[in-house]
C-alpha cells in the first residue's frame, strides 16, 4: 500500500469527492481523505477550498490525523484568515494538554500560521510554554518567538518575549540554550542595532558548557554566536580556543568549519610567541584536510573557505599541497577551486610537483579547466621566480601540442611572464610567431601583438606581421585594435624609417574609421604626440614599465580580515562582505578581527588628514550610515528597495574605456593634470592612486606607466577617466559610467548609460542625496528615446550647487539615485574637488596675509605629494588652469614657496603654501 495512489485521482469532481470523504463518519476514511489532500498540496495543487472540512477534522485524539491537519493549516491559513480563526480554540486547548509532545506541536504550528489575528491569541500560550516544565516544550517555544518576531516584531517586544528568551540562555538544558541562541541570532540579524546577544564572560561560559552537550545543529548556532564575541584579553581568548578545539573532530563538517572560524578569529589575539599559538596552528590543518574527503558540495564550500584561510595564514596548510591535487572525477567547480589553492600554496619547495601536476591538467578534456591550468602555470612563474625558467619551457611544450586553445592561453600567459621578467626569455618569441595564424581569440591576438610591438627591434619581420594584422583591422575586437595601434606606434618609434607608411595608415584608421571613442582618443593622442614632440612620444610610449605584481588576484587585506570573520557563511563562498550582497541587510554591522594584544604589532591608525581643513570649517553634522540610506530611500522615486550604497572602494574603473571621454579628455587634460596637484585636493590624488592601481591590475599590455616628467600627464588622464559607477549586474542590466568636469564656470556630470539587459529601458530620472557641497542636478535627466538592449547613450547633466548641504565622508562622496522603468538604483561616487573651484578664487595679497595668520592651528593640515618634478612656474600656471591662484612666490633656502588660494562653490577659502623641493614638494594648507 503506497501513497502514490493519492496522486492518481485526476477526475473532475475530485474536490467534491474529497469533501464528502472528509465529512464521513468513519475515522479511517477521514484520514485517507486528509492524506489525499496533503498529497495534492505537496505537488502544488490548490485544495484550499476544502479548508472548513479539513479544520473540522482537527478535533481528534488521533495524533497522526492532528498532525496532518496542522500541516494543511500551515499551508493555507494565510489565504483563509477568517476560517483559520476557527482553529484557534483547538490550539489553545492543545497548549494545555498533559502530553508535552502535543503542547509543543500546538505552539509550533501556531507560530507557523502567519495570520495577524491568530498571533494575538498566540501570546498567552507562548508565554506559558516558554516557562514550561518540559525542556522540549521550552525549546520549541524559543523558536516560536523567532517566528512571531518575523510576523510581528513590535508585538514580540511589547510582550517582553525577548527578555524571556535571553533568560533561556542560562537554561539548564543545553538544547534549550542552543535554540534560544539560534532564535536570538535570527532576530538580531534583522535588528542590527539592538543589543540582543549581549555577551559577557558569564554568558560565554554558559554557552561553552552547553556547546559540549547539545546537538550538532545547536553547536553550529552557539559557535557562530561565539564568533561575534570580543574577548577582553588574550587569556580569555586562549581559554575559549581551548574549549572550542574539541569541536574540530566533530563528524558534522558545518560544526568543524564554525569552530575553525572561532579559532581563526581569536587566534588574532594570541601572541605569536606563545606555545599555544603553534599548537593551535597544527591542530587546524587536519580537520581542514578531512573536509576535502566529503561530498563534492561540501568540498566546494570548504575549498572556498580554505582559499581565505590560506591567504590569511599560509603556514597552516603549507605542507598539505598534495590533498589539493585534482582528481579526474571531481566536479568542475571543485577542480577550479583546487587549482586556485594550489597556486596560492606554490612555493620554491613544492614547485616541481605543482608544475608536473599542472602540465598533466593541461592535457585534460574540459576546456575551461585546461585554460585555467595553463594560466596557473603562468601565475606560478610570476610567483616563484626560481621556477620561471621551468614554467616557460613547460609552456613551450604545451604550445608544441598545437591544441588551439592551449596555444592561445599559453601566449596570453607568456605575455605576462614577459611583463614580469623583461628581456629574459626572448628566445621563445620565434616559437610564438610560428603559431600566429592559429590565434583566433581576441585576447590571444592582443597578447601576441603586444609581444611583437614590445620586441619589435628583435623581430625582423615585425612590420610584416603587424601589417598582416592591420588588413583585417575592421573585424577585430576593440581590444585587438587598441593593441595593434600601440604596437605599430612602438614599432614606428623603434624603426622610424621603414614604417612611416604603416603608422599613418593605422592612425587614420583609428581616428577616422573606428567608432569606438577609446580607440579614437588613443589614436589622437598618439598622433599629436608624434607630430608635436617625437622625443616626448618616445618617452611616453616606450617608457619603462613597472613589473607586474606577484599576485594580482589577492584579496585586499582589510576585506580578507573581514571575510575571515565570516568563515563558513555565504560571504565566504562569494568572497564578498555580506553588505555587498545580502538583501535586506539594514545597515550591516561590519565585523573586524580583534587587534592582537600582548605583541608588538599595533593596528595602523587610519590617516584622514587630507581633508582636515574643510572638515573643521563645515558645520559638524555627521549622520550615521543608516540615516544616509534612509534619506536616499525617502526620495520620492518609487518603492524603497533597500541596498546599501556601494562602497566607494568597490567602484570599478573601466579599464577598456580608459579614454572613453573621447576628445573631451584631451581638452580637459591640462585642467585636471594641474588639479591633481592642487594642495586642497588630497582626495583627488587618492582617487588617482586608486585609478593607477586598477590600471596596473588590468594588465593591458599596451599601457605603459610614464615615469618622471610624464607622471603628471598620466594623472591628468586618470582623473578624467570615465568610471563605471553602477555595474550592470547590480542594476538589472543598466550600466552607468561617467565623469565630472568643469567648463567655463559650470559643473557638469557626463554620463554614459548602457542597457545590458534584454528589455527596453525608458523613463529615466536622476536625483542626488544631500552632499557636502550641495551638488544637485540643474536640469532633469533627459533621455529622449527609450534605450534599446545593448545600446548606450551619452548625456551631459549640468549641475549646480544650490542643493541642501550635508557633510559626507569622504567629503567628496556623492550618492545618486537613478530611476528607470524597471527599478530604482543607487550608487555612490567620488567627484574630483577641482570641479568646485570657482573662477574668482583669487584673494588680495593683504587679505591673504591677514587670513593666513588667523588660521588656527587645528585647521592646518600638511601632506606631501611625491613623484612630481615640476618647477614653480609650471605648477602655478597649471594650477591656475583649474582655478587655483598663486598669490605670491618667494624663494627660501633654495626652495620655491608658493602661496595660493582657491575658493569653493560654498564660499570657503582654502589657502595653501607650496614648498617645492626637487621631486618632493610639501604642502601646508
Amino acid at each position, binding site marked *: 500500500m503506497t501513497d502514490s495512489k493519492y496522486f492518481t485521482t485526476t477526475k473532475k469532481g475530485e474536490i467534491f469527492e474529497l469533501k464528502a470523504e472528509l465529512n464521513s463518519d468513519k475515522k479511517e476514511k477521514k484520514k485517507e481523505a486528509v492524506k489525499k489532500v496533503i498529497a495534492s498540496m505537496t505537488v502544488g495543487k490548490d485544495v484550499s477550498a476544502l479548508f472548513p472540512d479539513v479544520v473540522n477534522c482537527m478535533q481528534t485524539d488521533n495524533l497522526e490525523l492532528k498532525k496532518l491537519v496542522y500541516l494543511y493549516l500551515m499551508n493555507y491559513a494565510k489565504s483563509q484568515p477568517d476560517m483559520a480563526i476557527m482553529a484557534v480554540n483547538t490550539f489553545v486547548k492543545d497548549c494545555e494538554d498533559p502530553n508535552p509532545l502535543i503542547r509543543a506541536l500546538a505552539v509550533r504550528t501556531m507560530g507557523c500560521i502567519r495570520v495577524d489575528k491568530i498571533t494575538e491569541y498566540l501570546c498567552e500560550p507562548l508565554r506559558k510554554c516558554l516557562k514550561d516544565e*518540559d525542556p522540549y516544550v521550552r525549546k520549541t517555544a524559543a523558536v516560536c518567538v523567532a517566528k512571531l518576531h518575523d510576523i510581528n516584531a513590535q508585538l514580540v517586544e511589547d510582550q517582553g518575549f525577548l527578555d524571556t528568551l535571553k533568560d533561556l540562555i542560562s537554561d539548564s538544558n543545553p538544547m534549550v540554550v542552543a535554540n534560544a541562541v539560534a532564535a536570538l541570532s535570527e532576530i538580531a540579524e534583522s535588528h542590527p542595532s539592538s543589543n540582543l546577544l549581549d555577551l559577557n564572560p558569564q554568558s560565554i561560559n554558559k554557552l561553552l558548557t552547553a556547546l559540549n552537550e547539545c546537538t550538532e545543529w545547536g553547536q553550529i548556532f552557539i559557535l557562530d554566536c561565539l564568533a561575534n564575541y570580543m574577548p577582553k584579553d588574550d587569556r580569555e581568548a586562549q581559554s575559549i580556543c581551548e574549549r572550542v578545539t574539541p569541536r574540530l573532530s566533530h563528524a558534522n563538517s558545518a560544526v568543524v568549519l*564554525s569552530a575553525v572560524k572561532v579559532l581563526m578569529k581569536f587566534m588574532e589575539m594570541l601572541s605569536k610567541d606563545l606555545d599555544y599559538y603553534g599548537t593551535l596552528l597544527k591542530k587546524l590543518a587536519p580537520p581542514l584536510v578531512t573536509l576535502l574527503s566529503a561530498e563534492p558540495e*561540501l568540498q566546494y564550500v*570548504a575549498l572556498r573557505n580554505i582559499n581565505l584561510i590560506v591567504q590569511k595564514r599560509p603556514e597552516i596548510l603549507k605542507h598539505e599541497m*598534495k590533498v589539493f*591535487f585534482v582528481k579526474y572525477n571531481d566536479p568542475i567547480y571543485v577542480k577550479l577551486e583546487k587549482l586556485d589553492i594550489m597556486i596560492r600554496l606554490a612555493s620554491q619547495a613544492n614547485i616541481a610537483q605543482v608544475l608536473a601536476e599542472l602540465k598533466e591538467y593541461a592535457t585534460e578534456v574540459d576546456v575551461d579547466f585546461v585554460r585555467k591550468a595553463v594560466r596557473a602555470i603562468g601565475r606560478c612563474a610570476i610567483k616563484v621566480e626560481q621556477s620561471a625558467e621551468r614554467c616557460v619551457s613547460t609552456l613551450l611544450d604545451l604550445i608544441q601540442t598545437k591544441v588551439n586553445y592551449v596555444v592561445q592561453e599559453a601566449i596570453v600567459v607568456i605575455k605576462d611572464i614577459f611583463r614580469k621578467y623583461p628581456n629574459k626569455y626572448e628566445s621563445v618569441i620565434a616559437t610564438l610567431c610560428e603559431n600566429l595564424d592559429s590565434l583566433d581569440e581576441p585576447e590571444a591576438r592582443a597578447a601576441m601583438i603586444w609581444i611583437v610591438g614590445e620586441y619589435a627591434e628583435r623581430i625582423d619581420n615585425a612590420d610584416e606581421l603587424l601589417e598582416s594584422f592591420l588588413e583585417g583591422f575592421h573585424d577585430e575586437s576593440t581590444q585587438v585594435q587598441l593593441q595593434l595601434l600601440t604596437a605599430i606606434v612602438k614599432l614606428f618609434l623603434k624603426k622610424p624609417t621603414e614604417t612611416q607608411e604603416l603608422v599613418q595608415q593605422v592612425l587614420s584608421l583609428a581616428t577616422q574609421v573606428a567608432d569606438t571613442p577609446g580607440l579614437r582618443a588613443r589614436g589622437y593622442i598618439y598622433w599629436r604626440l608624434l607630430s608635436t614632440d617625437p622625443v616626448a612620444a618616445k618617452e611616453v610610449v616606450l617608457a619603462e614599465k613597472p613589473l607586474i605584481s606577484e599576485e594580482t588576484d589577492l584579496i585586499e587585506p582589510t576585506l580578507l580580515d573581514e571575510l575571515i570573520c565570516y568563515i563558513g557563511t555565504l560571504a565566504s563562498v562569494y568572497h564578498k562582505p555580506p553588505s555587498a550582497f545580502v538583501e535586506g541587510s539594514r545597515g550591516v554591522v561590519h565585523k573586524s578581527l580583534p587587534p592582537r594584544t600582548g605583541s608588538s604589532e599595533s593596528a595602523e591608525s587610519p590617516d584622514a588628514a587630507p581633508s582636515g581643513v574643510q572638515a573643521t570649517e563645515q558645520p559638524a553634522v555627521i549622520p550615521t550610515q543608516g540615516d544616509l540610506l534612509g534619506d536616499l530611500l525617502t526620495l520620492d522615486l518609487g518603492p524603497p528597495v533597500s541596498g546599501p550604497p556601494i562602497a566607494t572602494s568597490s567602484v570599478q574603473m573601466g579599464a577598456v574605456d580608459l579614454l572613453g571621454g573621447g576628445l573631451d579628455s584631451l581638452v580637459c587634460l591640462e585642467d585636471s593634470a594641474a588639479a591633481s596637484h592642487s594642495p586642497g585636493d588630497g582626495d583627488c590624488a587618492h582617487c588617482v592612486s586608486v585609478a593607477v592601481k586598477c590600471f596596473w591590475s588590468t594588465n593591458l599590455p599596451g599601457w605603459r606607466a610614464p615615469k618622471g616628467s610624464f607622471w603628471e600627464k598620466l594623472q591628468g588622464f586618470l582623473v578624467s577617466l570615465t568610471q563605471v559607477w553602477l555595474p550592470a549586474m547590480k542594476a538589472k542590466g543598466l550600466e552607468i559610467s561617467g565623469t565630472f568636469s568643469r567648463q567655463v564656470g559650470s559643473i557638469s556630470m557626463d554620463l554614459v548609460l548602457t542597457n545590458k539587459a534584454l528589455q527596453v529601458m525608458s523613463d529615466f530620472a536622476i536625483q542626488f542625496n544631500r552632499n557636502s557641497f550641495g551638488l544637485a542636478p540643474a536640469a532633469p535627466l533627459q533621455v529622449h528615446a527609450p534605450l534599446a538592449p545593448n545600446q548606450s547613450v551619452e548625456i551631459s547633466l549640468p549641475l549646480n550647487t544650490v542643493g541642501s548641504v550635508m557633510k559626507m565622508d569622504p567629503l567628496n562622496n556623492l550618492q545618486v539615485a537613478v530611476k528607470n522603468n524597471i527599478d530604482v538604483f543607487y550608487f555612490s561616487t567620488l567627484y574630483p574637488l577641482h570641479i568646485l573651484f570657482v573662477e574668482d578664487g583669487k584673494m588680495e595679497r593683504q587679505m591673504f596675509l591677514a587670513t593666513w595668520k588667523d588660521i588656527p592651528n587645528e585647521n592646518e593640515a600638511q601632506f606631501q605629494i611625491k613623484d612630481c618634478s615640476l618647477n614653480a612656474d609650471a605648477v602655478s600656471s597649471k594650477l591656475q588652469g583649474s582655478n587655483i591662484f598663486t598669490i605670491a612666490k618667494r624663494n627660501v633656502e633654495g626652495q620655491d614657496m608658493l602661496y595660493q588660494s582657491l575658493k569653493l562653490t560654498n564660499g570657503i577659502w582654502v589657502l595653501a603654501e607650496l614648498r617645492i623641493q626637487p621631486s618632493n614638494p610639501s604642502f601646508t594648507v
Partner: protein
Amino acid sequence: MIHSLFLINCSGDIFLEKHWKSVVSKSVCDYFFEAQEKAIDVENVPPVISTPHHYLISIYRDKIFFVSVIQTEVPPLFVIEFLHRVADTFQDYFGECSETAIKDNVVIVYELLEEMLDNGFPLATESNILKELIKPPTILRSVVNSITGSTNVGDTLPTGQLSNIPWRRAGVKYTNNEAYFDVIEEIDAIIDKSADLGQAVCSGSCILASCPGHRFHLPLCHYLQNPRLLDDVSFHPCIRFKRWESERVLSFIPPDGNFRLISYRVSSQNLVAIPVYVKHMISFKENSSSGRFDVTIGPKQNMGKTVEGVVMTVHMPKAVLNMNLTATQGSYTFDPVTKVLTWDVGKITPQKLPNLKGIVNLQSGAPKPEENPSLNIQFKIQQLAISG
C-alpha cells in the same frame, strides 16, 4: 535559515516542495535550471547559486537534486549537511532514495520534513528519534494498519528528544550482551604512469552494529601504541571526548542500531603499499583510426588475502568510437555515449592474472587523442587493515 526545499529529478520536474516559512514560488527554481543547463553535466551544477532575492543551495544525490532556498546569511555547510541528512533519512526509511520511493511515501516524507525542521531550525535529525515519532513504512505495518486502523505516528513523547543523549532511546534492552564492530578502511590513491604514488589518503571508519545497552570502554590499543598514526579523527557525538584526550580510550553510550562510531584519516606517509598493480599498454597510432589497449591487473604481496570485487572503469578520449576487446576473466562493457569502459573482473587469483586487450576504434579523420585515459580501479580485501 532554510526557507524551502524543492526536490527535482534529472529531467527537471519539481516533484516535491516544502516550505517552512512563507511560500516561495516555484519560479525561483528557474535560476537553478539555468545553472544546470550551463553546467551540461548534472554533477557539475554549482552547489551555491545566488538569485536576486534568494540563495539556492543544492546537493545531487541518487539522481535527485535537493534544492533549498534560503533568504538570509546561513552557513552553507549547515544547509548542505542538513540536505544530506534528509537524503540519508529517506534512504533509511524507504530503503532507497529515489523519486518513486519518495512519491510512494509522500505523506511520510512530508511528516518527516516537518519533524526535521521547524521554522528553518533543525529539530530532530537523529534517525532513532524520527523513527519513534514516525514509524517507517513496512509491508507488515501497512497491512496491520489497514486492519486495525492504528496509525503510523507514535503517540508517545520521543524520549530521546528530551534527554541529553539524543541519539538513544530510553529503556532499550537486549538479551545478549555483545557488539560487533566493522572496521572499514578505504584507500584513495592516485598513481601516475611510471607507478609513482601521486597521492594517497587512507580513510577508515569504525561501524558498530548491534549493541547492548551498557556503557562502552573501548581501549584502542593499536592506536594507543602509535597515536601519531591517525592524522585526524572525527567522532560520533556519543563519544566522551575528555577520556579520549586524556587516556586514548573510546568511552560511549551507543545509540540503538547501526551507526558510524569514528572515522579517521591516515596520510600517505604511513601507508605500506597499494595491494594491486596494473600493467597497461594503451596507445593510439598516428594517422590511423585505431589504437591498442592492453591492461593486466595483478595482486602485490598482501599477506595471503585475496583481492575481490575488482572493477575497472576507464574514461576513454572523446574520439573513441567503440572498442573490440577480449577479457580473460569477467565481463566488460563500453558505453559509446559517455565513453566509459567498465570491466567487472571479480576475484583475482595470482595464478591466472586477469587481462583485457584488444583494438580501439577511433573516429575516422579525428586527430590522435591528446589525453591519456585514466584507469580507475576499485577492489576489496577482506580482513586487512591498510593502515597497519
